[in-house]
C-alpha cells in the first residue's frame, strides 16, 4: 500500500516536473543567451472560459499574432468560468511582474479591483471583449453586440420581404451579450412585419436550442426564420427541423452569430445557415496594441471592432465587412 502511494506520487512529481522543468529551461535559454539582442517581454493572458469555442479562438488568435514576434512570450491561463479564479490569476501575474496583462473578464465588477491593482503596480492592462467598471485600464478592445444584432435583424427583414414568423433562440439572458444581441435584433426588425412568435433562453448551448426548437416546430405550422444568438444555437435549430422529418429545414432560414472558421462559417459553406455575423475576438488587435504599449507608444483607449457578414456567396472570400 505504502509502496503504491509512493510510486504514484513519484509519477505525479515527474509529470509536473517535465511541465515546469521545460518551461524554466526555455525561459532560461532566452534570458541567459547574450546573442539574443533586445529584451523579451512576458504577457499574461487571463481567459475567463476556454470551454467556449469562441474564446478558444481568441486565445488562438493571440497565439498566432504573438508567434510573429519572437520577443513576446504569452502565458495563458484559463479561469474556467469562475470570476474568483480570474481575480487570483490577475494577482498572480502582478506578483510575477509580467510586462503586460491581457484579460477577457468573466464579469465587469469582480475584475475591476484586480485590474486596478495591476495598473497601480505599473503593469499595463488590455481588456478584451467584456469591460471592467470605471476607466482604470490601458486599452479596451471589443465588438458591438447591439450593432451585430441589428444587422442580423435588418438582414432577415430584407430576406423575408418584410414579413414572417421568426423564432429567437437566445443566449444566456443574465449575460450582457445575450441582452444586447436581443436588443439589437429588435431594433433591426422594428417597423417591419416580422414577428418573434417563439423565444427561449438556450444559454448558448446547442442541445438546449435543439430542444426549444422542437417545441417551436410543434406549436407553429409556419416558421420562416430562426435567429440564433450564436451559431451552435442556429445549428441546433436546423437539426431539430431536420429531425422533424417534414423537410422544413429546407424552407426555414437559419441565421447565427459568431462566425468561427470551423463553426458558423463552415455551416454557411455547407448550406445549413443562410448567414452568420462575425463577432471578432480581437486577439490579433490585442497583440498589435500590446506591442505599441510595450514600446511606449500611445494607443486608443477604447477600440470598437466591426463585424463581417458571411453568406454562401462570400464565405470562401472572407465575408463582407459591415
Amino acid at each position, binding site marked *: 500500500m505504502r509502496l*503504491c502511494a509512493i510510486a504514484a506520487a513519484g509519477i505525479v512529481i515527474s509529470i509536473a516536473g517535465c511541465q515546469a522543468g521545460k518551461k524554466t529551461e526555455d525561459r532560461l535559454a532566452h534570458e541567459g543567451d547574450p546573442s539574443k539582442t533586445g529584451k523579451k517581454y512576458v504577457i499574461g493572458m487571463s481567459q475567463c472560459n476556454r470551454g467556449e469555442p469562441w474564446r478558444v479562438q481568441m486565445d488562438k488568435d493571440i497565439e498566432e499574432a504573438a508567434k510573429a514576434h519572437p520577443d513576446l512570450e504569452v502565458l495563458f491561463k484559463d479561469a474556467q468560468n469562475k470570476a*474568483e479564479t480570474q481575480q487570483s490569476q490577475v*494577482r*498572480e501575474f502582478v506578483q510575477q511582474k509580467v510586462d503586460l496583462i491581457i484579460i477577457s473578464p468573466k*464579469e465587469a465588477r469582480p475584475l475591476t479591483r484586480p485590474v486596478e491593482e495591476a495598473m497601480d503596480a505599473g503593469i499595463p492592462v488590455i481588456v478584451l471583449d467584456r469591460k471592467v467598471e470605471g476607466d482604470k485600464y490601458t486599452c479596451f478592445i471589443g465588438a458591438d453586440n447591439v450593432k451585430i444584432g441589428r444587422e442580423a435583424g435588418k438582414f432577415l427583414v430584407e430576406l423575408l420581404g418584410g414579413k414572417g414568423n421568426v423564432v429567437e433562440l437566445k443566449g444566456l439572458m443574465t449575460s450582457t451579450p445575450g441582452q444586447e444581441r436581443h436588443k439589437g435584433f429588435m431594433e433591426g426588425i422594428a417597423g417591419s412585419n416580422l414577428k418573434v412568435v417563439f423565444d427561449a433562453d438556450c444559454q448558448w448551448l446547442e442541445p438546449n436550442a435543439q430542444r426549444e426548437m422542437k417545441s417551436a416546430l410543434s406549436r407553429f405550422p409556419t416558421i420562416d426564420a430562426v435567429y440564433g444568438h450564436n451559431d451552435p444555437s442556429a445549428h441546433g435549430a436546423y437539426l431539430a427541423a431536420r429531425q422533424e422529418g417534414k423537410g422544413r429545414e429546407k424552407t426555414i432560414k437559419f441565421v447565427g452569430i459568431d462566425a468561427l472558421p470551423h463553426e458558423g462559417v463552415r455551416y454557411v459553406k455547407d448550406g445549413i445557415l443562410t448567414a452568420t455575423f462575425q463577432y471578432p475576438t480581437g486577439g490579433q488587435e490585442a497583440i498589435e496594441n500590446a506591442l505599441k504599449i510595450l514600446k511606449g507608444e500611445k494607443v486608443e483607449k477604447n477600440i470598437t471592432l466591426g463585424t463581417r457578414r458571411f453568406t454562401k456567396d462570400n464565405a470562401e472570400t472572407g465575408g463582407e465587412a459591415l
Partner: protein
Amino acid sequence: MALLVVFVLGCVYTPTARDTGLPIFISLRTQLDILFEYCEYGLLATGMTLVILSGGIDLSVSSVLGFSATFFAILTIGYGWGVPSAIAAVMAAGIVAGLISGVLVARFRIQPFVATLAMMTAARGAAKLISGGIKVQPAAQPWYALTDDTPGFFRWMTTALPGIGVQPATVLFLVCILTMAVIVKRSGYGRQLYAIGGNEEAARLAGIPVRRVKLQTYALCAMFAALAGVVNACRQDIGDPEAGFTFELDAIAATVIGGTSLLGGRGGMMFTLIGVLIMAYINKILSLNAVAIDRRMIIQAAIIVVAVLIQRQEKG
C-alpha cells in the same frame, strides 16, 4: 503528510518574480492568498463534514451559496439594508433552507442525495427569482437604493487587515472551522453525530434523538453555506444568481481528501481543514505555473487520488 508532500511540490515548482527573483509560492502573501481563495469552499466543506459524518450528503450547498449571495446583495444594494441585519436575514434564510432539507431527510425519510438535489434546484431557482434574472449590482435596477458603489463592508471583507495581512473572510472561515472542530470533538452533539453516522439504528435504540440531530446538522450546513454566500458577494462585488455552480463537488472532495468517510461516522473537522488546504495548494501550484487546462485536469486528478491514498494510510 499528504499536505506536506503537496507543499513541497509547491516549493519545488514555484515560478519566481521577474524583478526580485524570489520564489512566489513560498511568500507569505501567496500563502495567505491561498487560504483566502479557498475560504468559500472551506465554509461549505465545514458544513459538508457535519452532514457526511451523520451519514448523509448535501448537494444543495452550492445553490444555497448562490441564493445567499444574491439575497445579501439585494438586501444591501437593492433595499439599502444595514449589513448586520442583512447578514442575519441571510443566515436565517439559509437555516430555513437547511431545515427543509433536514425535514425531508429526517421526517419523510427521503434519501439525502435526492432531498438535497431538490433543494439544490429550488434554491438556484429562488436566486434567479429574487434577482429578476440579473446580477445584482448598484444601479442594475432603477429602484435600487445604492446606485454608485457597493457598501464598504464588501471591500473590507476582502481586503487584508492592516498589520496582520489576513482578510476578514479568511478569519471568518478559520473561526468557523475551528469552532466546529471543538464542538464535534467535545460536545454531546458531536458524539451523537458520530453515533448516527456509524449506525443509525443503534443510535436510535440508544435513545439518541436522531431526527433532531439530523435537522440541526442540515440547518448548520446550510447556515455555513449562507455565510459562504455573503463572502462570495463581497469577493465578486455583485450578487450573482449563478454563483457557486458545482462548488458542492469541491466541498465534498475536500472533505473526502481530508479523510472523512462518505459512509459516515468516521473522520473529523481538522481532517477537512487539511483537505481544503491540499485542494487549494494543488490549484495554486498549477495556476502559478500556467499549466494548460488539459494537462492540469489530469494532474489534478492524479494528485487527488494520491492524496487520498496517503491520508488513508495515515489513519491505518
